[in-house]
């Protein structure tokens, strides 16, 4: 029993963090907002050069073969820096689905190699999301038709953009016609693929929300320590302290929920659904509170376009309902907890 990360996993996270600190600074986010696609080929190139696009591509397809547990750390960094790139969709969620296809199916190896080297952008549609993120700039779309999984080249779909409050989100309605030429899986196999894909999408978002929460907390602590009123830093007042202490507490207790869910998914456990939903709720609530208390602590400055807090708040509000809104996840938790014969209570945290 060891519910911790290895030193390798932790130092990898450190390296990613250091890289994004310089390559995904808030000023750069603002610059990319102003561009039409909202995506930067230069940034994607740097991410690929760091090997981040190859993380969960299997080793025999040119990737690093990292699992969901590694992504639980990685996704927090993506959230912390609110990168204006759908890296997790392609390198984690889509790569996971494509890697699960049978060898040789639907160009599996080619697409994985292209994800790994950063030359392919892949968008993922799922029944739980009414719109598809990054469909416009994608080379390939993974789309559901009932239980069927379709790998659809961008040329075969029409998209209508739906602007989001988060200028780094690029959402589209996608119109397409399913055909036998694009189907890669169906029936029970398709159902299983979509179920795993859903959980990966959920965890990718949960990790980002947790990273966003930490970033908003850090920004708020910095602001409260330097902003003075009544002759003292506002961070010396208990009312302000307690807001931020509550955020820190939520973050601390959401982390291990995310990690357990990632482990359940990595090991194909039957209870991965409930753990993923629990993780999304815990991380989402931490981020939501960090945004609310963050803007409160920033005062009127928090309501401005100028202060960086806005980009992290908006990403939080946007992702809170991505890959299943709270109602969806609360229902999944309730179904598991209230089921007849549910194994609950002490000694059932880590089931054999």
């Amino acid at each position, binding site marked *: *029993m*060891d*519910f*911790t*990360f*290895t030193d390798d996993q932790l130092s990898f996270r450190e390296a990613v963090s250091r890289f994004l600190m310089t390559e995904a600074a808030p000023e750069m986010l603002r610059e990319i907002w102003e561009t039409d696609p909202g995506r930067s080929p230069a940034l994607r190139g740097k991410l690929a050069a760091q090997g981040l696009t190859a993380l969960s591509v299997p080793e025999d397809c040119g990737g690093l073969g990292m699992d969901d*547990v590694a992504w639980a750390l990685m996704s927090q960094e993506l959230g912390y820096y609110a990168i204006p790139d759908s890296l997790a969709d392609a390198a984690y969620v889509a790569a996971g689905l494509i890697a699960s296809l049978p060898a040789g199916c639907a160009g599996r190896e080619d697409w994985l190699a292209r994800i790994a080297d950063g030359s392919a952008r892949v968008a993922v549609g799922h029944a739980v999301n009414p719109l598809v993120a990054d469909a416009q700039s994608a080379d390939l779309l993974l789309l559901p038709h009932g239980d069927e999984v379709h790998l659809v080249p961008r040329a075969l779909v029409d998209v209508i953009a739906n602007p989001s409050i988060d200028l780094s989100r690029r959402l589209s309605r996608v119109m397409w016609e399913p055909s036998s030429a694009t189907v890669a899986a169906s029936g029970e196999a398709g159902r299983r693929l979509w179920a795993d894909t859903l959980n990966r999408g959920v965890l990718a978002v949960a990790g980002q929300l947790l990273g966003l929460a930490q970033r908003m*907390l850090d920004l708020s*602590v910095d602001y*409260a*320590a330097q902003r003075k009123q009544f002759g*003292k*830093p506002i*961070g*010396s*007042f*208990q009312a*302000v*302290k*307690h807001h*931020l*202490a*509550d955020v*820190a*507490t939520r973050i*601390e*207790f*959401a*982390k*291990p*929920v995310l*990690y*357990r869910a990632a*482990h359940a998914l990595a090991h194909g456990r039957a209870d991965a659904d409930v753990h993923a939903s*629990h993780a999304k*709720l*815990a991380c989402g609530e931490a981020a939501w509170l960090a945004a609310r208390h963050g803007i409160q602590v920033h005062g009127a400055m928090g309501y401005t376009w100028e202060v960086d807090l806005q980009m992290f708040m908006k990403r939080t509000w946007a992702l809170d309902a991505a890959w299943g809104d709270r109602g969806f996840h*609360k229902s999944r*938790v*309730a179904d598991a*907890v*209230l089921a007849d014969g*549910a194994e*609950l*209570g*002490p*000694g*059932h*945290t*880590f089931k*054999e």
Partner: protein
Amino acid sequence: MDLAYTPKQKAFRAEVRDWLARNLPRHPLASYDTREGFEQHRDWERRLFESRLSMVMWPEELGGRGCDLIEWLIFEEEYYGAGAPMRVNQNGQLLLGPTLMEFGTEAQKRRFLPRMAASDDMWAQGWSEPNAGSDMAAITSRAILSDDGSHYVLNGQKTWSTRAIFADWLFGLFRSEPGSTRHHGLSYLLVPLNAPGVTIRPILALNGKQAFAEIFLDDVKVPVDNRIGDEGQGWHVAMATAGFERGLLLRSPARFQATARKLVELYKANRASADRDPGLREAVCEAWMGAEAYALSAYHTVGRLAKGARIGAEASTNKIVWSELDLKMHETAMRILGARGELLADAPDAGSDAAGWLDGFLFAQAGPIYAGTNEIQRNIIAERMLGLPKS
């Protein structure tokens, strides 16, 4: 990350489970806030001790088994999962015990720890005073060293001392350097409660029982051998036992997971009426999630400790989480019980599913107050974990 238990851990779990199945009291013990219940709980502690299960993490020579923290979590899961009695001597075993191990002389350890593990000695805590609550450094009770240096003479008043009226010993902080202020000049002393000059007056708690007491000290003589650590170093001694250990050991996740499970059962048994309040189903699910999160956090923290990590002020998050979770779960139970919620356990129409909830609800009110109020914990988190400036 390896979330499987080792064969040794599984065997330990099986042994504890089997022992509890064979030894659990057939009938619930009386409340340990009564003389009768207190002694019943002491007898139960002795049975645990005879099987080396009262303090599983303590070394064998002190009456324990030398278990690691994971095994301790397993023990707690089995213990609270089986609905075993509350631990009546926890304040001594978990607050004083680790301090003695770290700062006590060999003679002090041999003298006090095995008897503490066996509950031959029951311990009450002597921190708070009428004017030193959240501001514990405002302690004024004095301990003046005798001219021959053989003993201290204690004068003053301690209060909120849990079950002190039934206990044998008191551990606490006293001002041993005349004229000293705040954290300086305090000494950590162990005081036999049958010493001349000790007067214990019970305080009736919310449940009408003598759950705690105030203790008056009038020229009470305490040998210097009863001092833990150096004179004047009491504050350091009391605080050195990591806050994490105090927070987590005192309230292991298993206890709250057991409450969450019971809450799910209560909700299911009363679903027709409960679902008229759309918030209850969500509150029940949140209870399960909260208890799970606390358990997961404990395993994560324990694993990090085993790898040599040091846990600092983030320990204060534990106290906030378990106390507020416990309160929320009991509030939810009261809402599910509706008009039956107010009925005492022996009320003829209370219903068997109501058992324990009202008592637990009353006790849960104290959670955010004792062991450092949650306001104090939030200050600690803000100042020491987040680095915000002091008030």
